[in-house]
């Protein structure tokens, strides 16, 4: 799938760039964290598939394996860009 980056937007002033939907940020659309895809883009496993294994370190250092840790409960798994910026 050939994905294009969405560079639509305008510069409003120093460190003020709006994107195609009018959200304003310090970087222009299509750069850095604002590299949004235009059109279709991969969204991972499909609805109906088993959630792939996730084994990672939690914020307190322990290793978490989601399918074990959830203990038979449903899961909400959020992939976010960053909790720092």
């Amino acid at each position, binding site marked *: 799938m050939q994905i294009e980056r969405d560079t639509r937007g305008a510069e409003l002033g120093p460190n003020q760039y709006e994107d195609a939907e*009018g959200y304003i940020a310090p970087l222009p659309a299509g750069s850095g964290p604002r590299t949004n895809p235009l059109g279709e883009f991969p969204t991972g496993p*499909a609805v109906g*598939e088993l959630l792939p294994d996730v084994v990672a370190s939690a914020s307190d250092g322990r290793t978490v394996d989601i399918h074990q840790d959830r203990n038979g409960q*449903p*899961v909400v798994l959020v992939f976010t860009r*960053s909790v720092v910026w």
Partner: protein
Amino acid sequence: MENFEAAGAKVYVLSYDEAEAMADYRAAHNANFTMLSDPNSDVIRSFGILNTLIAEDDHPWYGIPYPGVYITDADGVIIEKFFENNFTVRPGPEQLLAALKGEEVLLKERTGVDAKVTVEVEFEGDTLPVGLSRQIVARFSVPEGIHIYDEPVPEGLVAASIEVDELSEGILSYTPVTPPTRSMTLSGDGHTLEVYEGDVVLRLPVAQNGRAIEKDDDGRWVSISGRVQWQACDSEACALPEEKRFNFRVPAAFAVLGDMGPGEGRVPAMNGAAHFKEMMTRRQTQG
């Protein structure tokens, strides 16, 4: 968060930040959910959602995912996922909870022969922060023998939909959430249309980009206006198209973002600038 616990679900938030950065965030926001650190983007890659539009040497941005949410059932099977093209907006908790619980349809007693379609419209939330989408929900009650339509409809027919006014500057709408339809073939020309019957709930996620916030003595507000449209037909004829307007004025709350600043009193410092610098250094010196 209590709502997710009450729904019996476990919430995980994963990003490429280091564990220490996540620990600071967790403490600052009193977060209840498990935060998972994926600093080399291994999990992100395994899901196939690494943002490959970003160059490998574009630090610190390389390694981020196309952001989204997966909801599973009790067996760990994905039942819904939320991904939008604009990464500034993310789905509000109401949408995630609705996916977990499944849409609850209340079946009402049907009374009266000449009952008509009624609709209730509400904004599912108390506030609209920038970057969070919340839904406008239209609950239709369609009497037996009557139906309304899903797109596409032939010229002259109006499909059921929720629309935000174009003049509602600063308000954006995203992919509508609609229930399954029934296929109905018109005997006349064999045309097949998709119809909704009974209790029908349409949902339109909306967000605001911050450009239309109104300030007054009571605070900051944002107005969301628009209309719900539909056209009711029975097996023989159609009524005139109908609409119900809505205008919601909700507080434009502050978004809960990663904060690189010194903290503003209501949120303690998360050492954002220090963590950011560390991320840059680590990525630039990594092989």
